């Protein structure tokens, strides 16, 4: 579950101040999916960063997966990101020097050996589920854009997060590949029971979610596709 109340965020640029989020209210029930659409720079990524506990400089209340994020220590927020949130990025952000499987396992880099072994098994299983069976040891450079984003999806799901925050996950993919990725994401979400918030330019992607908002001049407006 995601709940946001009176969330405001300002950036200082030169002598002026820009309000990217202005007293935003938002609520997404657990297990639901939602989409944020809006122009570039509208504040979609900023909102996702706040919800993921990466950006702490805001006003208002933010509760994600039952945790109030304000006033938490770095260790608490790190634990929250590790255990409760799965991130997907537009640029995939896979590390070139690691294999597909090691990229998936990044979130348990500092885990004990037994836990790592356990997650390695799940990582292989997830890679198989996203259609990358036998490609675990490939470096990202040997994978296509769609395959890389599927690795990123497996990484986001590794620790069975309660919330997935996806920032333009199909932005660098051709429409057909993007479509396939969304089908895969929906299937995995059904299996895992996670809440999804997706920031996208693509109205076709947004149409597939349970709820949709447009972010415009710092305000969230319910968006109903034509």
């Amino acid at each position, binding site marked *: 579950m995601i709940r946001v109340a009176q969330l405001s965020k300002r950036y200082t640029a030169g002598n002026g101040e820009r309000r990217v989020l202005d007293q935003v209210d938002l609520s997404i029930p657990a297990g639901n999916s939602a989409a944020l659409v809006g122009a570039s720079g509208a504040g979609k*990524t900023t909102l996702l*960063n706040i919800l*993921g506990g*990466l*950006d702490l400089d805001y006003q208002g209340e933010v509760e994600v997966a039952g945790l109030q994020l304000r006033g938490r220590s*770095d*260790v608490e927020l*790190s*634990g929250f*990101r*590790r*255990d409760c949130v799965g*991130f997907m*990025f537009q640029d995939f*952000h896979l*590390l070139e*020097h690691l294999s597909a499987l090691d990229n998936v396992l*990044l*979130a348990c*880099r*500092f*885990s*004990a*050996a037994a836990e*790592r072994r356990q997650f390695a098994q799940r990582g292989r299983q997830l890679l198989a589920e996203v259609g990358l069976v036998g490609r675990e040891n490939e470096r990202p450079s040997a994978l296509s854009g769609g395959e890389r984003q599927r690795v990123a999806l497996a*990484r986001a799901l590794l620790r069975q997060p309660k919330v997935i925050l996806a920032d333009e996950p199909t932005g660098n993919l051709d429409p057909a590949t993007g479509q396939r990725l969304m089908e895969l994401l929906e299937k995995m979400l059904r299996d895992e029971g996670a809440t999804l918030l997706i920031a996208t330019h693509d109205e076709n992607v947004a149409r597939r979610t349970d709820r949709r908002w447009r972010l415009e001049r710092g305000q969230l407006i319910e968006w109903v596709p034509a």
Partner: protein
Amino acid sequence: MGAGVNALLAAIGADVQRDRRGLALAAVGVAIGVAALTFILAAGRGAERAVVDELLSRTPINVVRVEPKVGIAIGPLRWDAGGLLTPAVDATAVKELERVDGVAAVYPLANAGFPMRAQGGKSVLGHDVYMDMFAFGVDPAFVAADVDAAKFVDPGAGSEAAVPVVVSSQLLNIYNRTVAPAVGAPRFSAEAVVGFSFDLFLGESYTTGRSNQRVQLTVRVVGVSSRVPLAGITVPIATLERWNRTFAPDKKQVYSAAYVETRSPREVDAVVRRADALGLVVDESARLVGGIIRGTTAALSLIAALILAVAGLHTAQTFEARARARRKEIALLRALGAARRDVLALFAGEALLVGLVGALCGVALGLTGAWAAASALRQALASLPFAPTHLVAIDALVIGLPIAAALLAALLGGLGPARRASKLDPAAVLAGGHG
């Protein structure tokens, strides 16, 4: 992520596997510094042992003569050239000197507080010699290396036995080289003078006349030593103190000097400093030995500090570059749940590992170099009569100091980049900014 030690080691191990060349290069830089430090320490301490323990130990350089400043005595105090009242060498000063670390023993040198004269020599010179005499008293243990301790003991008041005396080997040398040839007298070896006896008149002098008390007794030479004063005779200190109580009862017992024997010449500097603090003076050779040892230690410390700084800078540069190259990885790790302290521990752990590997390799390299240099030097010096046996020294300091220095340098060098890496703003870096 609150990583445990095992998990952290596994993460460090994974990084090492991935970037073996980069980390090896960093370790090479540390190893070179450590090798240089090890070489200098091994060779320097070897040379120190060769000079201090082997060469200097053949001379009585670990015996420091401590005496009052030259001046006018007023009771136990003296008026020195600087115009200050300065303390004498008395029982308190002796106790203070005994407390200095490394001091094996303190031997006060007492002098007679009354006049005396000597008469005798007919049996060996053919005629008697008459002269005023100076007498000193020392602990028999101080001359035990030269004189049979069983023979150099106070005979006690009222004893008929001859009083044992020791004469200076330098005095005998001067007599043999200058006096004997000038007056046509025979020369004597150290063994030949032992057993020679003459009369001593306490409380009587050719220059100052008689005192109220006068005692005649016989003294017998029981040994020759380089440790006793040049002018006069030296008796057991118990004998001299007994005489002083009889012939100079109003004078407080102070000593003309004290001989401080240290366990090795290394401790001489501490004695010099303590004597300075007590307002006493020491002979310049002792000050020189102290200065040499202090200077060597200071030079080694300076070299160690410089190498530590260079190794630290090298590690800092390496890890700064690594942190820059790994910004995206660090940001990603943070976004995926690594806490700042995990990143800090990862970088600091890698720096320590580099320091440890560099230190071990460096110590091995430095010792090998020192051994090689020592064998070459030993061959070159083989024909010298006093070729030192210690050319390199390997002890806890030679191995421990470079390792500790390397670990400290690596940690100090790696900590700054580690802290900066842990403070990266993951959102900004992943968005393509600088974080």
